[in-house]
């Protein structure tokens, strides 16, 4: 009796599991419009904030966003644009404290696939990924 040749249905990725450190329900998730409006920061009635203070807050917010973007990248497929028009793709693993190096795995290079690698951030012009 011949068993028919079948191929498994391809899958884009596996379902995402818990992040392991929070209970989830991301405030910026798909259903953010349904959340009740909550004032973000309890403002003391200061008449004017110094420019410096505002700038510092903006810097902190941007830094936090960047760090969160790095967290969101973990385990994902990222495409890097390097110097000389070189493009590579890899699974992002981690960065070091100063964001000077990216630890990646399965680095796809024009000369083959490297299981583990360190990408020097100074060599990277840009990178993109889909969350």
């Amino acid at each position, binding site marked *: 009796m011949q068993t028919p040749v079948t191929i498994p249905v391809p899958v884009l990725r596996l*379902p995402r599991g818990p992040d392991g450190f929070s209970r989830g329900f991301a405030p910026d998730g798909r259903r953010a419009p349904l959340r009740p409006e909550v004032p973000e920061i309890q403002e003391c009635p200061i008449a004017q904030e110094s420019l410096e203070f505002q700038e510092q807050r903006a810097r902190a917010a941007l830094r936090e966003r960047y760090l969160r973007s790095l967290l969101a990248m973990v385990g994902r497929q990222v495409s890097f644009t390097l110097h000389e028009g070189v493009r590579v793709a890899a*699974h992002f693993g981690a960065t070091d404290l100063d964001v000077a190096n990216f630890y990646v795995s399965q680095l796809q290079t024009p000369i083959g696939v490297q299981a583990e690698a360190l990408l020097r951030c100074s060599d990277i012009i840009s990178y993109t990924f889909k969350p």
Partner: protein
Amino acid sequence: MAMRQTPLTCSGHTRPVVDLAFSGITPYGYFLISACKDGKPMLRQGDTGDWIGTFLGHKGAVWGATLNKDATKAATAAADFTAKVWDAVSGDELMTLAHKHIVKTVDFTQDSNSLLTGGQDKLLRIYDLNKPEAEPKEISGHTSGIKKALWCSEDKQILSADDKTVRLWDHATMTEVKSLNFNMSVSSMEYIPEGEILVITYGRSIAFHSAVSLDPIKSFEAPATINSASLHPEKEFLVAGGEDFKLYKYDYNSGEELESYKGHFGPIHCVRFSPDGELYASGSEDGTLRLWQTVVGKTYGLWKCVLPEEDSGELAKPKIGFPETTEEEIEEIASENSDCIYPSAPDVKA
């Protein structure tokens, strides 16, 4: 080219998954909640299985979980003698409803204003969610612990199942209208509003009754003890799973077994079709939920049909494929795809 079912495994729970429920279809898609003996029910996106959040608060195994129609509220029934109502958008606990014994089942009315609960104290309770401190209305009559309680007939009636009986109650008068007796333990019950059909499983039988009269419509026998079954929204198929770890798909009209799948590592406790009927979810003793396609090979959610013309004319090799085998192998393949170069052209949008 014949396609083979690729189940999507949703991990995260650490103990058996004993109940699961889908919401209705909302502007944000549909959602899935799973009840687990680890006490931490989880909310997931229904079409992908992606984890959204975990409802933290119960101090015992969660035996029942449900979502309201628009997935803005969730309710859970637990062994810590409470039922809890949650905000399903923020994950916050909204109210705790104290009971006198293990709570097994919870169900919202269509307007989400009332919650029905049932459990080991053999009482059905109806809570007004706008007045949670008020005493619930109680319906007594069951002689063994209640396993499942559901609103039916546009919330005008209640269906409840204990070990050996299924009873129909009138909501307004709080009295029993009819009952069915079984000589085997009833393992599950599902209510289909369109067509007023009740799906009951006991032993190896999957039985269909009218939800209005409780009269039998038809029943099928499965090869093994069945713990849960679900009827497709268009009533073309039904799926069932139980003690032999397998999922069975039957043609509802003919009773013919169409497909069966191995995959779980333990008995299947619950199985439900999604509200659009495109997939069904199963929860098992092995602590996982799996999503299965109703039509194998269709592009939907995370399943993407790849046409054979792509590539260099080679016989259709799935670009990102997972053979239907053990979980460990799937994990392995996902992390060391060294031979696969990902497609550059097609949109890889879930």
